[in-house]
């Protein structure tokens, strides 16, 4: 037999068969090895019996059974393997293991730095629990964590020094601005600054996260996905942190100690900062392992919110009740629009841009339209009484946000309609959403920088 010469194609065939097996989630590495050993034993016996290699391979594979049936049997025995496990298991690749190891160290260091950073002002006598120092912490909250998060992405994406400087400039400028502006104590502009600064600086994180792909739509969309997942992970980590805090308090209370200061001064603030870094790392690590949650939630809630909005509109039309203009009504409608933009954004983030329009796209359009109508009604009600209210910083900020979101949604509705009617590319909508992203941050930056002098620091 000319086994030596024909060995290569056989090895190739075995390799291919192995690759097919590997793709089955229910069959893990050692199982594949065990099955391959069996296949080789069988091949040896068959060639010994006089079959040529090709025939032997076909017979051996056939005797092994169909891959589907096999993987079904393995799945029945090892059902746990069908659950994708995030807890980052070494997959036997030494080079990747070192990277994972280094990343773990980097993330731990950054999370610890963020957790400690929020304690640094305390060294200078600024106490987190102190009412007088609260505004300082509110204004500077971003700086305890965002530089470290940006640093993580700079490291992870391997960005060069020149880019780092461009990322550092806005952060340093922001520190300078919010800490030198002579705010009146407890003023609205101060609160607005504190609220808008993280939104403005989130853009810096986004540019770092996109790692040089910011000016491609794909990079921005990845950042959108990252933000949504981070939010969900952060909420989950916060829930866990709440349980941890509750148990700490309970156990120490059982021995007659009341360690409120541990929770208030350390556990909660340090945990809140560190969790941002850890959450980001988890999102980065899980990308290819687990389904994204944000689009799933979007799917679930788009129909529900559409129904609520439609019912609300119908009720308003039926009963003729006007919107009761109260202090926070504008903010409430802003939040409604934010929510709808989020639903549109996250359903776009998970959609195959090439797919033709379907029922869900129609539903999206209906959601946007009803949100626009609701908002228009509210705006009309507010406009009729705006002169009574006067222009306070809060109202201008809220109106500006409403306008920005309204423009986004109106154009999205137009694009959706074009997509549904004439079958234009869905990419147009995706591109519109990603192009619009900096607008939010720029507006937020304007509120931080221009509002205090504009409204005399009141």
């Amino acid at each position: 037999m000319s086994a030596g010469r024909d060995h290569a194609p056989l090895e190739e065939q075995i390799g291919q068969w192995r690759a097919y097996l590997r793709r089955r989630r229910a069959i893990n590495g050692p199982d594949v090895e065990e099955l391959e050993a069996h296949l080789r034993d069988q091949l040896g016996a068959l060639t010994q019996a006089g079959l040529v290699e090709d025939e032997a391979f076909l017979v051996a594979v056939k005797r092994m059974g169909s891959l589907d049936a096999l993987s079904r049997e393995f799945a029945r025995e090892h059902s746990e393997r069908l659950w994708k496990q995030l807890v980052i298991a070494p997959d036997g690749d030494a080079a990747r293991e070192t990277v994972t190891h280094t990343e773990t160290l980097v993330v731990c260091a950054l999370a610890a730095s963020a957790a400690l950073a929020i304690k640094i002002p305390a060294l200078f006598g600024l106490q987190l629990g102190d009412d007088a120092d609260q505004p300082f912490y509110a204004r500077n909250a971003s700086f305890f964590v965002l530089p470290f998060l940006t640093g993580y992405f700079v490291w992870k994406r391997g960005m060069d020094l020149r880019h780092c400087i461009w990322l550092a400039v806005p952060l340093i400028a922001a520190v300078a601005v919010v800490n030198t502006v002579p705010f009146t104590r407890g003023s609205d502009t101060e609160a607005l600054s504190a609220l808008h600064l993280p939104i403005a600086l989130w853009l810096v994180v986004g540019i770092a996260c996109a790692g040089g792909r910011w000016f491609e739509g794909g990079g921005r969309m990845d950042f959108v996905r990252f933000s949504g997942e981070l939010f969900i992970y952060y909420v989950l980590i916060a829930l866990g942190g709440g349980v941890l805090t509750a148990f700490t308090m309970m156990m120490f209370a059982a021995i007659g100690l009341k360690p409120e200061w541990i929770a208030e001064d350390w556990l909660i603030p340090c945990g809140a900062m560190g969790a941002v870094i850890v959450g980001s790392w988890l999102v980065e690590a899980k990308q290819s392992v687990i389904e994204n949650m944000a689009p799933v939630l979007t799917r679930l809630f788009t129909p529900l919110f559409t129904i609520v909005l439609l019912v609300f509109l119908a009720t308003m039309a039926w009963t003729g009740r006007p919107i009761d203009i109260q202090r926070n009504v504008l903010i409430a409608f802003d939040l409604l629009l934010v929510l709808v933009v989020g639903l549109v954004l996250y359903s776009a983030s998970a959609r195959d841009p090439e797919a033709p329009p379907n029922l869900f796209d129609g539903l999206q359009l209906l959601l946007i339209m009803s949100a626009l109508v609701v908002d228009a009604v509210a705006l009309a009600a507010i406009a009729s009484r705006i002169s009574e209210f006067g222009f306070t910083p809060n109202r201008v900020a809220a109106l500006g946000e409403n306008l920005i979101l309204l423009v986004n949604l109106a154009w999205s509705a137009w694009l959706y309609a074009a997509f549904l009617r004439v079958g234009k590319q869905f990419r147009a909508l995706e591109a519109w959403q990603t192009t619009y992203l900096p607008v939010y941050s720029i507006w937020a930056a304007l509120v931080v920088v221009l509002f205090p002098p504009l409204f005399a620091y009141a």
Partner: protein
Amino acid sequence: MDLRKDLVAASATPLVLAILAEGESYGYAIIKRVSELSGGHLNWTDGMLYPVLHRLERHGLVASKWGSSESGRRRKYYHLTTEGRRELEAERKRWQTVDQALHRIWMKACPT
């Protein structure tokens, strides 16, 4: 002769346990032994043996360890545990009961 699937599945456990009672073995050899014992009538789909072995291992009836074959490749060997020996005895009793009952009725129903 065509053996029904459920009959093949039901007899798999006692067969594997009994073969391993003869001594440590591995997948391919077990399949060959089964074929030998049944005179070629019991032909398992080769791959299906492994989920069975893994189940027996999970129940603690067999244990496995990696060794190497004559040609030096890695190969997983299975052997019976004490628990497995006990289970084999219980299985034998069960199958004997079935066998006896069938035997008696065969004598009456189709005495050849």
